[in-house]
C-alpha cells in the first residue's frame, strides 16, 4: 500500500521534473505528506508570492489601461480582453453551428428548423426588452449628460457675452489711442504695446472658450457606462437574432434541399424527355438531365465555408509553423552533421551561414513570394499542389484531414520564411554537437572497428542528439516568432493576419482582440517550448531523466 503510494508520488514528481513545471513539486510532496512545513514554505515562496505579483500586475493593467486614450478607444482592460475571448469563442461556435446545419438531413433538419424558430421567437422577445432597457438607459443617460453639460453651457454663453463686451472695449481703446498717436500726443511705441497686449488677451479668451467646448464634447462623446452596457447587451441579442435568421436560411437551403431540388429537376426533365416528340426539346432536356445530375453529384462534395475564426487561425498558424519547422529540421540536421564531420564542408558553409543568418524574415518573405510564387503561376488555385491539398477526398475515398486549412501560396511563403529563419540555430547546434563529440567515444568506435554508417548512427548521432534538440528548440521558438510577422505581412491566414486585420479594423473591440491574440501567441509559444524541452530531456543522457 505504502509502496504504491510512493510509486505514484515519485512518478508524479518525475513527470513534473520532465515537463519542467517545477512549481508543482511542493504541492505534490505536500499531498503525500512529505515534510509539510518545508513544502508550505516553498508553496508560499514559489507559488503564492508569484500569484500575488501577477495579481498586482493585472491590477495595475486594469487601472492604467483606461487612462490612455488612443484613436481606437481606450487601451483594453483585462476584463475587456476576457470579454473579447468569450465573444470570439461564441463566434467560433456560431460558425460551427452553420457548418453542421448545412449538412443536416431529413427528420433532424426539420427538428432543427423548429428549434431555431422557437429560439428566434424567444430572442426577439428578449431583444425587445433589451431595446427598451437600452432606450431608457440612453434617455436617462442623455438626461445625465444634459445635466452635466447645462452648467458648462451657461458658462460658455456667459463667457461669450463677456468676450463680446471686452472685445468692443478693446476696440474703442485702440481707436482712441490711434487717434492720439496720429495727433502726436502719444508715442508710436504705446500703440504697439497695446496691440500686443490685446492680442494676448484675445488668445487667452479663445483658449478658455476652447477648454469649455472640449469639456462639453468630452461629456457628450463619453456617455455613462450604463448606456454603453445596455446598448452592448441589446446589440448582442440583435447579433444572436441575425445568427439564427442566417441559420434558418441555411437550414432551408442546405445540402439536402439543394440536392433534392436538382434531382427534382432531373426527374422532371426525364419525364418531359419521355413525353416529347420534338427533337429540339429532346436535345435540350437530355442536356438538362446531364448537367443537373452532374451538379447534384457535385453538391455531395460541397461544404459550408465558415468565416475565419480565431481557433481556425490558430490551427493554421500551428500547421504553418510545423511545416516550416520540419523543412528546417530536414535540411539543418543532415547539413549540420556533414559540417560537424568534415572541416572542409564546415569551411564551405560558414560564409553562407554567416551571411544569411542575420537576414530579416521580412526580406526572406519577399524573396520567397517572388521565387516560390513563380512556381504557382499563372493560376495558383489550379496548381496541382493546392488542388491536392485542398480536395475533400484523396484518390476519391481517403478523407483529406488538412482540407480545412485551405492551403494557399501565402501559407507556403510563410512556411518557407519560417524554415529559412529556423534553419540556422538547428544547423549550428547540430554541427557543434557532432564536432564536439568526446574523443573517448570515437576511440571506442575505432577499437570496435565500426564502419562509417554504424559509427554515425551508433556513436556520433546519439552523442550529438542533446545539442541537436537544443538547437531545434531554439529553431521552433524563432520560427513561431517569425511566423506571426510573416503572416501579418503576407496576409496568410493565421494569428498574424488576425492581428493585422484587427489593427486595420481599428475599433475598440478589435483593440481587445489584438491583446487576446497576443496572449494566445504567447501561450502557444510557451507550450511549444515546453514540448521541445521535454524532447530534449528525453534524449539527453547526462541527467537522470533519460530513462523516464
Amino acid at each position, binding site marked *: 500500500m505504502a509502496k504504491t503510494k510512493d510509486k505514484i508520488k515519485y512518478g508524479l514528481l518525475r513527470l513534473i521534473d520532465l515537463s519542467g513545471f517545477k512549481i508543482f513539486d511542493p504541492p505534490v510532496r505536500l499531498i503525500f505528506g512529505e515534510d509539510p512545513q518545508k513544502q508550505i514554505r516553498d508553496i508560499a515562496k514559489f507559488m503564492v508570492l508569484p500569484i500575488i505579483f501577477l495579481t498586482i500586475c493585472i491590477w495595475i493593467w486594469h487601472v492604467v489601461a483606461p487612462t490612455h486614450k488612443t484613436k481606437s478607444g481606450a487601451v483594453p482592460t483585462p476584463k475587456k480582453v476576457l470579454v473579447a475571448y468569450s465573444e470570439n469563442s461564441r463566434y467560433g461556435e456560431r460558425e460551427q453551428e452553420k457548418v453542421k446545419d448545412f449538412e443536416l438531413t431529413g427528420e433532424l433538419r426539420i427538428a432543427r428548423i423548429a428549434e431555431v424558430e422557437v429560439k428566434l421567437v424567444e430572442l426577439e422577445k428578449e431583444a425587445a426588452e433589451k431595446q427598451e432597457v437600452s432606450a431608457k438607459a440612453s434617455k436617462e443617460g442623455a438626461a445625465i449628460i444634459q445635466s452635466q453639460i447645462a452648467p458648462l453651457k451657461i458658462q460658455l454663453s456667459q463667457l461669450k457675452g463677456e468676450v463680446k463686451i471686452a472685445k468692443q472695449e478693446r476696440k474703442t481703446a485702440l481707436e482712441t489711442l490711434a487717434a492720439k498717436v496720429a495727433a502726436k500726443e502719444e508715442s508710436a511705441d504705446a500703440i504697439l504695446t497695446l496691440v500686443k497686449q490685446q492680442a494676448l488677451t484675445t488668445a487667452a479668451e479663445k483658449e478658455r472658450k476652447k477648454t469649455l467646448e472640449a469639456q462639453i464634447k468630452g461629456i457628450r462623446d463619453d456617455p455613462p457606462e450604463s448606456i454603453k452596457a445596455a446598448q452592448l447587451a441589446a446589440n448582442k441579442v440583435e447579433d444572436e437574432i441575425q445568427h439564427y435568421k442566417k441559420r434558418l436560411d441555411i437550414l432551408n437551403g442546405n445540402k439536402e434541399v439543394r440536392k433534392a431540388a436538382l434531382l427534382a429537376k432531373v426527374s422532371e426533365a426525364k419525364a418531359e424527355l419521355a413525353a416529347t416528340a420534338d427533337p429540339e426539346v429532346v436535345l435540350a432536356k437530355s442536356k438538362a438531365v446531364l448537367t443537373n445530375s452532374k451538379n447534384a453529384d457535385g453538391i455531395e462534395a460541397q461544404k459550408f465555408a465558415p468565416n475565419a475564426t480565431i481557433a481556425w487561425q490558430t490551427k493554421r498558424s500551428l500547421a504553418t509553423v510545423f511545416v516550416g519547422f520540419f523543412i528546417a529540421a530536414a535540411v539543418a540536421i543532415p547539413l549540420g552533421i556533414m559540417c560537424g564531420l568534415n572541416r572542409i564542408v564546415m569551411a564551405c558553409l560558414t560564409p553562407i551561414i554567416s551571411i544569411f543568418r542575420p537576414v530579416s524574415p521580412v526580406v526572406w518573405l519577399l524573396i520567397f513570394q517572388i521565387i516560390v510564387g513563380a512556381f504557382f503561376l499563372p493560376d495558383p488555385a489550379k496548381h496541382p499542389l493546392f488542388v491536392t491539398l485542398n480536395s475533400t477526398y484523396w484518390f476519391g475515398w481517403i478523407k483529406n484531414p488538412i482540407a480545412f486549412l485551405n492551403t494557399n501560396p501565402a501559407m507556403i511563403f510563410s512556411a518557407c520564411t519560417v524554415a529559412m529563419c529556423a534553419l540556422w540555430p538547428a544547423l549550428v547546434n547540430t554541427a557543434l554537437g557532432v564536432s564536439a563529440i568526446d574523443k573517448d567515444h570515437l576511440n571506442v568506435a575505432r*577499437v570496435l572497428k565500426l564502419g562509417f554508417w554504424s559509427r554515425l548512427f551508433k556513436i556520433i548521432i546519439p552523442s550529438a542528439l542533446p545539442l541537436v534538440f537544443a538547437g531545434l528548440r531554439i529553431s521552433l521558438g524563432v520560427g513561431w516568432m517569425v511566423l506571426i510577422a510573416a503572416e501579418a505581412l503576407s496576409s496568410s491566414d493565421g494569428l498574424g493576419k488576425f492581428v493585422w486585420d484587427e489593427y486595420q479594423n481599428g475599433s475598440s473591440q478589435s483593440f481587445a482582440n489584438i491583446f487576446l491574440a497576443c496572449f494566445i501567441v504567447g501561450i502557444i509559444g510557451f507550450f511549444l517550448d515546453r514540448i521541445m524541452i521535454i524532447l530534449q530531456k528525453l534524449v539527453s*543522457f547526462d541527467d537522470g531523466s533519460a530513462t523516464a
Partner: protein
Amino acid sequence: MARPRRNTNPAMSYLEIDHVDVSFGPISDRTHVLSDIHLSVEENEFVAVIGFSGAGKSTLMSLLCGLQKPTKGEVRMDGNIIKEPGPDLGMMFQNYSLLPWLTVNENIRLAVKTVFPKLSKKEITEKIAHYVEMVKLSHAGDKLPHELSGGMRQRASLARTLSLDPKVLLLDEPLSALDALTRSELQEQILNIWEKEKRTVVMITNDVDEAVLMADRIVPLTMGPSATLADAYPVNMARPRDHHTLNDHPEFKRLKTEITSYMMGLNKEARAISKDVVPMPNVRPKDFSPPTAAPRLKNKVSQPTSAA
C-alpha cells in the same frame, strides 16, 4: 643489488615495441613523453607495467592498441606493424569510455554485435549475461553509466573489453577504483581467463602487490618527461598464487621491497632533477599588506573584556 637483466632476446616476440619515441605538440614546443621504449611480450605472457602518475603509462597502452602512432620506431604484433586499433587488441580505457546513452547491457551488446556479427540474438544475450555476471553487475545491467558508481563503471568497462574475446588484453588500471574485496575477486577472474583461455595480457597498475600477484614480469616506467622502460623484474613464483598466503612468501617480500625501493629511488631522483632545474628561492615573500587598524582592533576585542 642483483638487478635482473633486460630481456634482449633477438627472436621475434608476439607483441613488440621496438625503440619507440612518442612526442606531442609542434616542434618548437615538443613534449617528449616516451623515449626509446623497448618491450617484448611473449605469447600468453602476463606483463604488468608500473609507473608514476603522468609518466606515460596510458600513452604506452594507446601505442600498443594502435590508437597512438609512434613518433619514431615500430610497434608489432605477430610480426605485423599495428596500423590501427581493432578488437584483437582489447583495450580497457582508464576512463572507462562507456557510451553514456547506452545501458551497461547495451554497451556490451554494441561491442559483441560488432565483433561477432554472426551470433544469434540468443547467443548474444547469453554472452552479455555471462560477462555481466562475471563482473558482478547483473543487478545493474539496465542502468545508464551516470547511474553507476565509479567502480561499477570500471567493472562494466572490463566486462565490455572481456566480451570482445581479444587475443591481447590491454588493461589500463583496470581495478583502481574498486574496494579490496571486489578487487581481489576480479583479480582472480582476470587470472582465470588468462589461464584458461590463454591470452596475452599487458596490465597497468599502480599497486605493486597486484603486479606481483598477477604478472609473469613487472616492467617499471621511469618518471617523465622522456620516460622509458627500466629493466624488468621476472616474477618466479608458482601459480596459482594465493593472495592470502602471499604476504609470507619470501620471493614476494623480496620483489616487493626491491620494486618499491626502486620506484622510491626514481621518485627521489626525479625530485632532485627538478630541484636542479628550478632552484626555488628560499625566501619568504614580503608582507605587502598595508598596516591596518583592523587586526589590532580584533586583537583588542579578543582580549578578555572583564575589565570593561
